[in-house]
C-alpha cells in the first residue's frame, strides 16, 4: 500500500474516535523523537529530537538548508519522516494526515504560504469550515465572522474583497491570521516576518505573545536573531540536519547565537561609506509611473541609497519601473550619462540596470531548471552566436559557490531542491554576473541566514567598490543602516525628504518610516 | 398555399468526392427546375444531422432530400416533416421506418458480392481453382453502405470459396491508414494475389503502396495483383480504360438524386403516392429497376453493374456526366 493510501485509511479510522482526549497539562505539547528524513543520499534530518512546552515559544534556528522547513513539514504532516515519531500532547500523530493533525490543533504557516487568489478574503480565512445554514453556505455569517477576525488582528480590508488583489504584505498577513485563527494548540511559523516592515513584525510578535497567554505554543523560525531573542523562551539549533544545541533562550547573547547557528564566529559586516562626492552613475529625471512620480534622484559611483516608504507608496514601484517591470509614463533615466531605454527588463538589463526581486518564487527562479541555468538565465554565455557555452555556465556556478557558500549537490541540480536562502543567493549571483552599472535590490537578504547575510552584504559592498550604484529596499532598519550612504523617504509616490550619511541611525530610519505611517 | 421554391439537402459528409457529386447533382437538378438549393453537412455526427433537419424543416422547404448517416434516428423527423407538410426523399442510405415519400438506394451488399465473385473468378483463372489470398481493406463501419459492402464481400468468399484466404484489415476512411495497411500487407505477403477496396476513394492509396514497392503492374502482367473496387468514379473510369484495375462496380449517385426529385415532383407534390412496380429509365445506364414497398415507403433499388472497358465510353455513366458534362474533376490540377 502506498503511503498516501495509508493516510486516507488511517484518517477515516481515527476520525471516528470522537473528541481528542486532552493531554496532561504539564507535559510538553510537542515532542519530536529521533526523526530522520532524506531526499537523496545525504539526510536532511538526521535524528532530530526536540520538545516544545505548553505556552512556550520555541525558536528553531539554523543556516539555510539546515532542515528547519523540512522539520516543520514533517511535524505538520506535509511530508512524512523516514523514521521517528511526532507526539502532539502525548499522542503519537506520526501516521495521521495533515487534516487530522489540524483537527488536533496543529497548524503550520509555511515558508511559502499561499492563498486562494480568486476567492474572497472571508473564504480564505474560513475554508474549509464555512458557516452553513440548512446545509448551504451562509454568506452573511461568513463575512460577519471573517470581519471580526480581521478586526481583531487589525487588518483593515473588507472580507468580500478578492484575496488576489491584496499586496504581498497583506497576503502574508492574511496567511498568518488564518494560521493563528481558531483553536490552535501549536502553531509553527516558518519565517513569518520575512519581508515584513518593522511595524508589521512588531504587530505579529505582539499577537504571538498574546496567544501564548491563552496557552497556545509556537515553533518560531526566523533568521532575525533579535526577534528570536526578544520572543522565544526556548530554542533548538539545527546544523546539517542534527540538533547542534538547545536550551532556554534567556541566556543567549547575539554573538553566541550566531556562533551556534553557523558553527563559527560571524563577523558582522559594517560598510564604511565615503562622504566624498561621487560622479553620477544613474540620473533619474521627472520619472512618473502608475501610482507615483515625478521622481528626481541621482546615485553616484559606488553609492548605496536606501529607499524608505510604505508599501505602495513608491520605493518598490520605482525599482520595478527602472527594472522595466512597470511602465514609465514620463521622465527619463540616464545611465553613465546615456539615456537608458527602460520599457522592458531586457532593455533595462542592456542599459546596465539589474533588479533583484523580493518575490523569489513568482518572479525569481525557474523551478524546473538547474542551478547553472538559473544563474545564466537571459544572459547565456554563448558560442557561435546561438549555442550555450557550458563551461561558461559552470564557471559562473563556481564563482557563485565561492562567493556565497551555496549549499548544493552540483550545478545540474534543480534549483527548487535548494533551501530558500540558497535560492536567494543564486538569484543575486545571476545579477552580479551581468556586471551591472546599477543594482536595484528589493530585500536582498530575505530568508537568508546570518552568515550568508554577511556574505551578501560584502558582495554588495564589493560591487560598489567596482563603481556600481545601488538602490536598496530593506525592511530591517538595521540592515539598511549598515549598508546605505543615504536614505530617501517616499510618501504618496514622491520623494518627501532625504537623510544624509550624518546622523543616519537605525532609529532615524525606523522613525522616518513610522512617521509616515502615523500621519 | 403556395409551394416553396427551396429544395433542402442534408448530407452526412462532404469531405469525400462521392458526396460532393450527390450534392452537385441535386443543385443542378434544382436549377434546371428553376428552384433554389440549400445544403447542409453533418460531418459524420448524427446529432448534427438531426439538428440540420430541424433547422431546414423550420424553413418549410419544397421538400427535404437527405442521405442518412444512420437508418434509425431520422425516423421521428420524417413524421415531423409530414406534419409540417414537407415531403422527404432519401438517397443512398434509406431509413428503416418512418414516412418517406420516395427513397432511391443502391444494393451495397450486392456490390460487395459481385466484387467477391469477380475476385474468385480471376483467381480461378490464375490458379485453375478459386484459391489464393485477398486483402479487404475495408472502410469505416459506422457508414452503413461500407458495412454492407464488407459483409457482402467477405461473407461470399467465406461461404463459397473456402480456399481463398481473406486478410481483413480496416482503413477507417483515412488515406494514410489505407496506404499504411496496404504497404504493410504487401511487405508481409510477397505472395498476395488480390486487393479489394470498398470504394474508389482509397484505390489511389493502394496503387501508391504498390507503386512504391514496385509491385504495380497492369492487368495481364504475370506479377499483376488483382484489384477490385466499387463506385465507378471518374478515377476508376480512367483506370478501367487503361487496364489498371480488374473490376469496378458502379453505383449511380446522379440517378439517386435526379430520380428522387422526379418522383417527388411527379407524384408527391401532386398529392399522389409513388407507385410501386418496375421502373424503367433509359437515361441511366442500368435502365431498369424496381420500386418496392419498404418500411419507410416506396424504395427504388438501383442494381449494381460492372464498369468495363467495353461500356466505359457510354455517356450515361455518372463518371462521364461528371467529367464531360459538368466538367468537374475528381482530382484537381
Amino acid at each position: 500500500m502506498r503511503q498516501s493510501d495509508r493516510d486516507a485509511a488511517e484518517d477515516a479510522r481515527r476520525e471516528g474516535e470522537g473528541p481528542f482526549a486532552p493531554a496532561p497539562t504539564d507535559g510538553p505539547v510537542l515532542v519530536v523523537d529521533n526523526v530522520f528524513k532524506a531526499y537523496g543520499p545525504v539526510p536532511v534530518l538526521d535524528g532530530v529530537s526536540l520538545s516544545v512546552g505548553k505556552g512556550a515559544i520555541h525558536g528553531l534556528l539554523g543556516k539555510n538548508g539546515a532542515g528547519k522547513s523540512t522539520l516543520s513539514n514533517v511535524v505538520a504532516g506535509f511530508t512524512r519522516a523516514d523514521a521517528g515519531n511526532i507526539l502532539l500532547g502525548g499522542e503519537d500523530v506520526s501516521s495521521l494526515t495533515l487534516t487530522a493533525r489540524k483537527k488536533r490543533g496543529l497548524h503550520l504557516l509555511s515558508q511559502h504560504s499561499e492563498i486562494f487568489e480568486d476567492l474572497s478574503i472571508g473564504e480564505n480565512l474560513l475554508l474549509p469550515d464555512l458557516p452553513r445554514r440548512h446545509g448551504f453556505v451562509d454568506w452573511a455569517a461568513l463575512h460577519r465572522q471573517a470581519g471580526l477576525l480581521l478586526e481583531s488582528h487589525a487588518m483593515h480590508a473588507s472580507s468580500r474583497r478578492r484575496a488576489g488583489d491584496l499586496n504581498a504584505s497583506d497576503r502574508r498577513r492574511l496567511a498568518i491570521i488564518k494560521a493563528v485563527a481558531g483553536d490552535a494548540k501549536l502553531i509553527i511559523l516558518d519565517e513569518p516576518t520575512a519581508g515584513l516592515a518593522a511595524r508589521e513584525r512588531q504587530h505579529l510578535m505582539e499577537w504571538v505573545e498574546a496567544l501564548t497567554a491563552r496557552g497556545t505554543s509556537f515553533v518560531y523560525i526566523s533568521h532575525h536573531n533579535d526577534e528570536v531573542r526578544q520572543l522565544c523562551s526556548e530554542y533548538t539549533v539545527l546544523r546539517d540536519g542534527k540538533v547542534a544545541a538547545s536550551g532556554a533562550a534567556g541566556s543567549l547573547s547575539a554573538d553566541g547565537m550566531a556562533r551556534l547557528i553557523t558553527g563559527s564566529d560571524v563577523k558582522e559586516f559594517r560598510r564604511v561609506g565615503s562622504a566624498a562626492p561621487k560622479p553620477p552613475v544613474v540620473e533619474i529625471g521627472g520619472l512618473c509611473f502608475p501610482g507615483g512620480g515625478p521622481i528626481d534622484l541621482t546615485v553616484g559611483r559606488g553609492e548605496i541609497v536606501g529607499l524608505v516608504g510604505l508599501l505602495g507608496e513608491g520605493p518598490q514601484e520605482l525599482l520595478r519601473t527602472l527594472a522595466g517591470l512597470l511602465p514609465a509614463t514620463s521622465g527619463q533615466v540616464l545611465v553613465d550619462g546615456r539615456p537608458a531605454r527602460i520599457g522592458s527588463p531586457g532593455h533595462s538589463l542592456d542599459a546596465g540596470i539589474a533588479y533583484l526581486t523580493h518575490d523569489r518564487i513568482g518572479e525569481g527562479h525557474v523551478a524546473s531548471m538547474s542551478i547553472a541555468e538559473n544563474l545564466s538565465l537571459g544572459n547565456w554565455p554563448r558560442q557561435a552566436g546561438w549555442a550555450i557555452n557550458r563551461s561558461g555556465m559552470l564557471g559562473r556556478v563556481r564563482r557563485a559557490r565561492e562567493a556565497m557558500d551555496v549549499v548544493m549537490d552540483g550545478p545540474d541540480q534543480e534549483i527548487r531542491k535548494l533551501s530558500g536562502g540558497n535560492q536567494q543567493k543564486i538569484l543575486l549571483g545571476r545579477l552580479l554576473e551581468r556586471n551591472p552599472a546599477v543594482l536595484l535590490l528589493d530585500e536582498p537578504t530575505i530568508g537568508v541566514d546570518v552568515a550568508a547575510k554577511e556574505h551578501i552584504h560584502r558582495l554588495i559592498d564589493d560591487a560598489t567598490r567596482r563603481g556600481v550604484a545601488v538602490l536598496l529596499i530593506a525592511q530591517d532598519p538595521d540592515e539598511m543602516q549598515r549598508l546605505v550612504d543615504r536614505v530617501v523617504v517616499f510618501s504618496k509616490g514622491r520623494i518627501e525628504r532625504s537623510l544624509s550619511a550624518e546622523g543616519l541611525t537605525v532609529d532615524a530610519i525606523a522613525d522616518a518610516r513610522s512617521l509616515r505611517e502615523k500621519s | 398555399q403556395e409551394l416553396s421554391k427551396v429544395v433542402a439537402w442534408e448530407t452526412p459528409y462532404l469531405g469525400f468526392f462521392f458526396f460532393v457529386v450527390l450534392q452537385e447533382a441535386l443543385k443542378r437538378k434544382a436549377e434546371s427546375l428553376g428552384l433554389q438549393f440549400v445544403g447542409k453537412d453533418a460531418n459524420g455526427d448524427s446529432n448534427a444531422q438531426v439538428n440540420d433537419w430541424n433547422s431546414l424543416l423550420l424553413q418549410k422547404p419544397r421538400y427535404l432530400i437527405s442521405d442518412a448517416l444512420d437508418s434509425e434516428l431520422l425516423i421521428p423527423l420524417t413524421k415531423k416533416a409530414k406534419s409540417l407538410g414537407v415531403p422527404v426523399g432519401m438517397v443512398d442510405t434509406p431509413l428503416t421506418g418512418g414516412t418517406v415519400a420516395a427513397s432511391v438506394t443502391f444494393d451495397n451488399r450486392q456490390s460487395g458480392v459481385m466484387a467477391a465473385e469477380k475476385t474468385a473468378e480471376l483467381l480461378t483463372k490464375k490458379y485453375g481453382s478459386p484459391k489464393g489470398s485477398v486483402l479487404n481493406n475495408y472502410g469505416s463501419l459506422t457508414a452503413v453502405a461500407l458495412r454492407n459492402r464488407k459483409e457482402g464481400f467477405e461473407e461470399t468468399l467465406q461461404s463459397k470459396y473456402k480456399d481463398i484466404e481473406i486478410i481483413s484489415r480496416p482503413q477507417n476512411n483515412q488515406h494514410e491508414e489505407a496506404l499504411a495497411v496496404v504497404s504493410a500487407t504487401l511487405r508481409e505477403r510477397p505472395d498476395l494475389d488480390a486487393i479489394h477496396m470498398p470504394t474508389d476513394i482509397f484505390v489511389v492509396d493502394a496503387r501508391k503502396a504498390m507503386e512504391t514497392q514496385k509491385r504495380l503492374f497492369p492487368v495481364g502482367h504475370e506479377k499483376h495483383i488483382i484489384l477490385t473496387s466499387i463506385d465507378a468514379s471518374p478515377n476508376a473510369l480512367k483506370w478501367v480504360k487503361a487496364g489498371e484495375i480488374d473490376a469496378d462496380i458502379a453505383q449511380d449517385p446522379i440517378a439517386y438524386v435526379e430520380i428522387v426529385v422526379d418522383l417527388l415532383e411527379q407524384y408527391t407534390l401532386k398529392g399522389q403516392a409513388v407507385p410501386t412496380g418496375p421502373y424503367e429509365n433509359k437515361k441511366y445506364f442500368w435502365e431498369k429497376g424496381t420500386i418496392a414497398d419498404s418500411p419507410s415507403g416506396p424504395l427504388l433499388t438501383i442494381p449494381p453493374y460492372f464498369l468495363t472497358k467495353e461500356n466505359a465510353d457510354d455517356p450515361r455513366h455518372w463518371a462521364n456526366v461528371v467529367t464531360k458534362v459538368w466538367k468537374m474533376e475528381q482530382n484537381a490540377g
Partner: protein
Amino acid sequence: MQDDMNGRKFLLDNVVWILIIVFSLLAGVLNPFFLSEGNLQNVLVQATTLGVLVLAVSFTLLIGEIDLSVVGNLVFSGMIGAYAMQEYGAHWTVAVAVTVLTGTLIGALNGYFVSYMRMNSLIATLAMGLFLQGAVLGATQARTLVIADEGYAYMGSATIGTWPIMPVALFVIYLAAHVVLAYSAWGRNLYATGGNRRAAHAAGINVRRARLGAFAASGFLAGLAGFLYASYLGGVSVTVGSTTLLYAVAAPVIGGVSLLGGRGRVLGMLGGTLLITVIQTGLQLINVSAYYIQMIGGAMILLAIAVDAFRVRGEEQGSV
C-alpha cells in the same frame, strides 16, 4: 472614473451576452427565420444537449483539469440505458437511473485515474473517450439502438402547446449547478482546490476527494446528457455527438471559465453554451454553401475568443 471602470468591467464580464445579441441580429438579417419563435425553440433545444456537456466539462475545468471523455461517456451511458430497457425490460425510470449512474461511475473512474493515480487528465480522458466510443462501436456493431419506450423519450420529444419541454431541463440543471457551486461547501472546495491545490491541502481540504468528486460530477452530467441525447434523438448510435467535443470545451472558455482552475461562473457557462448554439444554428439557417460552413464556424469561434481576450487582458494588466 471609478464608474467608468465599473462600466468597462461590466461590459467585459458580459461580453458573451453582447456577442449573443450581435450574432443573433446578424443571423436574423441574413435569414429572418432566425428571429422567429420556432427558431428560438430550436436554439434552446440544441442548447440543452450541448449545455449539459458544457457543465460537465466545466466542473473539471474548475479544478484545473479537463474531462474530454464526456462525449464518449454520453454515448456509452446512453447505450447502457437503452440495453437496460431492451435486454432486461427495465422500466424507463430505472433505465434513466442506470444511464446516469453509468456516467457517474465512469467519471469517478476518471477521477481516480487523475486524482489518485496522477494520470494526466487531458490525455487520460481523451483515451477514455476513445475507449468508450470504441466500446459502443464494438457492442452495437455500429447499429443504432432505438428507444421505443415513451417514458424515456418523453423529455426529448414532449411539448406544451408548441413549446418543447427540453429547455426546462436546461434551466433546472443550470440552476442546480449554480446553487451547488456558489452555496455548497463542496462547491467552494472545488474552487479552492482549483485555485490553489497546495493551499487547499494545507487548509485541510481533502484535495484528492474533491478532485475525484469533480470528475464524478462531470460523469454524472455526461450521463444526464446521455439520457437527454437518447431521449431527444429517440436512439443511441456511435456517431452521436462526434463533432460536439470541441464546442463543449470552447463554450466554458468563452464564458470566462479559466482552464487553470478556480475561476468561472455558471452564468458564464450558460452564456458560452448559448453563444455557440447561436453560431451553430445561425450557420444551419443562413444560406451559405456547406463547403464554407466549417470555415466560417472556426472563424466565429476565433472571433469570440478574440473578443473575450479583451476581458483577459483587462484582468492580467501589466503581466507578460
